[in-house]
């Protein structure tokens, strides 16, 4: 029991933080918001997966990846391929020149399903692919970079370029990927309509459960010796290496885990939003994910979830009124956070939160003392008056 408490919840403070977040996500938001807004929150929470993955990779590991969108997108595309195949049965696509293949393939003069689409007819394979394709991709990138001791800014730039390359590839291979429009018009999951109201609720809760699962997993990793080694590597990589650790293996592992976590978010995104497109893969979404993590506090698994929600609410509200200003504001927000609040919202809370709570308590105390003095004064006045 203690093991679970310390290692998964992160002690008393961690457990309180998780309980508050759980109350917000599982109870308050579903009760307070209408379905449209709740679905939006569900979408934001899928980005929170990527933000959580960046706590592991960037916050603790010190490895800044500007390509988390790649893994988010790969997970999302794997799920979208399955859903698209299910939506493209010969009956509904009989007006196409080749019925039974996704519509965009037909528009691009493809006459049969490409080989790599075939296995996505199987749901079990798809779930495995959502997890494994991004993880293996991360393994290849991680192995080739960390074994050569590529790190820091160079790593960030290379991951960003990979995000760009993947976007260009997806857009260019229209017949296989749906091009710039992405994979759209997704309807059912194993016959279950993902577009109606009840399934939107169900998907919201599945997503929330998975998010908490991922937070628990990350907490477990960070409270182990592995977590301390990540901090140690961030600080003095050579000392870790000359203490007998193969540093690159640790980096590869944390990169793979972060890819897997982002990918789960991507798959849940596809399910909740109903499509997947290259605009969630490229440089801009990847950087946005870093901003979510920075605003929430890159050292805090809970903080980044708030960060993601806040920035996205801000984005939705702001871009409804001033769409063209949003990107500038986002940039300013990032610079501001990095310069003045390097530990984000979580850092501000750690510094001032307990003080604020105390302040509230003090105000009550002050109030109590004041009323006591007041009543004494009145009593005195009464006594002298008599």
């Amino acid at each position, binding site marked *: 029991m203690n093991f679970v408490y310390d290692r998964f919840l992160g002690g008393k403070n961690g457990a309180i933080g998780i309980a508050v977040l759980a109350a917000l996500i599982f109870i308050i938001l579903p009760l307070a918001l209408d379905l449209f807004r709740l679905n939006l929150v569900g979408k934001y929470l899928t980005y929170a997966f990527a933000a959580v993955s960046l706590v592991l990779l960037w916050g603790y590991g010190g490895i800044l990846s500007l390509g988390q969108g790649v893994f988010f997108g790969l997970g999302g595309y794997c799920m979208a391929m399955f859903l698209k195949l299910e939506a493209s049965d010969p009956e509904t696509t009989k007006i196409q020149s080749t019925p039974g293949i996704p519509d965009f393939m037909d528009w691009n003069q493809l006459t049969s399903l490409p080989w790599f689409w075939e296995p996505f007819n199987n749901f079990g394979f798809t779930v495995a692919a959502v997890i494994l394709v991004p993880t293996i991709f991360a393994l290849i990138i991680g192995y080739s970079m960390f074994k050569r001791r590529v790190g820091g800014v160079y790593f960030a730039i290379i991951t960003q370029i990979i995000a760009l390359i993947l976007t260009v590839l997806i857009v260019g291979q229209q017949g296989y990927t749906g091009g710039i429009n992405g994979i759209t018009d997704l309807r059912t999951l194993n016959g279950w309509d993902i577009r109606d109201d009840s399934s939107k609720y169900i998907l919201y809760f599945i997503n929330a459960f998975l998010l908490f699962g991922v937070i628990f997993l990350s907490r*477990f*990793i960070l409270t*182990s*010796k*592995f977590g*301390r*080694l990540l*901090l*140690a590597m961030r*600080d*003095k990589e*050579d*000392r*870790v*290496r*000359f*203490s*007998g*650790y*193969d*540093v690159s*293996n*640790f980096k590869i*592992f944390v990169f793979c885990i972060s890819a897997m976590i982002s990918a789960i978010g991507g798959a849940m995104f596809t399910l909740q939003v109903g499509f997947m497109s290259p605009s969630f893969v490229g440089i801009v979404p990847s950087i946005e994910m870093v901003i979510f993590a920075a605003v929430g506090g890159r050292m805090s698994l809970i903080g980044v979830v708030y960060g993601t929600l806040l920035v996205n609410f801000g984005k939705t509200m702001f871009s409804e009124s001033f769409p063209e200003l949003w990107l500038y504001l986002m940039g300013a927000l990032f610079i501001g956070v990095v310069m003045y609040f390097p530990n984000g919202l979580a850092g501000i809370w750690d510094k001032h939160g307990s003080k604020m709570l105390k302040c509230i308590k003090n105000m009550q105390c002050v109030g109590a003392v004041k009323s006591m003095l007041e009543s004494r004064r009145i009593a005195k006045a009464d006594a002298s008056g008599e």
Partner: protein
Amino acid sequence: MSNTDFTLAIEDLTVSFDGFKAVDNLNLYVDKDELRVVIGPNGAGKTTVLDLICGKTKSTSGSIKFKNKELTKLAEHEIVHAGVGRKFQTPSIYENLSVYDNLEVSFPRGRGVFGSLTFKCDEEVDTRIREVAKEIFLEEFLDMESALLSHGQKQWLEIGMLLIQEPELLMLDEPVAGMSVKEREQTAELLNRICKGRSVLVIEHDMDFVEKIAHKVTVLHQGKILAEGDMKTVQNDPNVIEVYLGH
């Protein structure tokens, strides 16, 4: 090269950086239980020798044998696993971790990715950490964030992080730099204590300190050995006097 009884046997070791030979045909033998001090003017190649032994720099030619095991072909962490520990010139400790965590992270168990995930700080580890902390005069500072330690205490902590791995060859690069007189004395005592059962290789500039600890002194100059022997012989060697005082 033949096998020897020495803990560390360096033969014909050369490393050249773009034609500049930082270490030139070096031969150096260190015995078990020996504390060897390497001295020499700036740029003599002292730190480079340590870099070569621990694998930070790859040699151009020659061989380094540790307990008759060739080190030049091994990766850094494999050299550590073989039993070589190295302290850097500037104290390299994990400033954002506590003294206790610094030692725990250095404990030689759970060195793989999955090993570190399942590593548990059990009684054996805890006892060992306290033991080492006592040895390096830091037992009262275990819970302190290590960034707050004094410069000298940081040096000790790094030595402790090596000791906890029980290396058979311990290499210390200027262990008393930035220490007070009292701390130097304590360090000399510490080194005399820990060189039992292992070999220790120290680079140092402070001659008073060298005199206190050295069993044997090697003088390096321009990547080559200039003199070797006990402190007295070396101090009276005309070549050494020439190099140190000549210009």
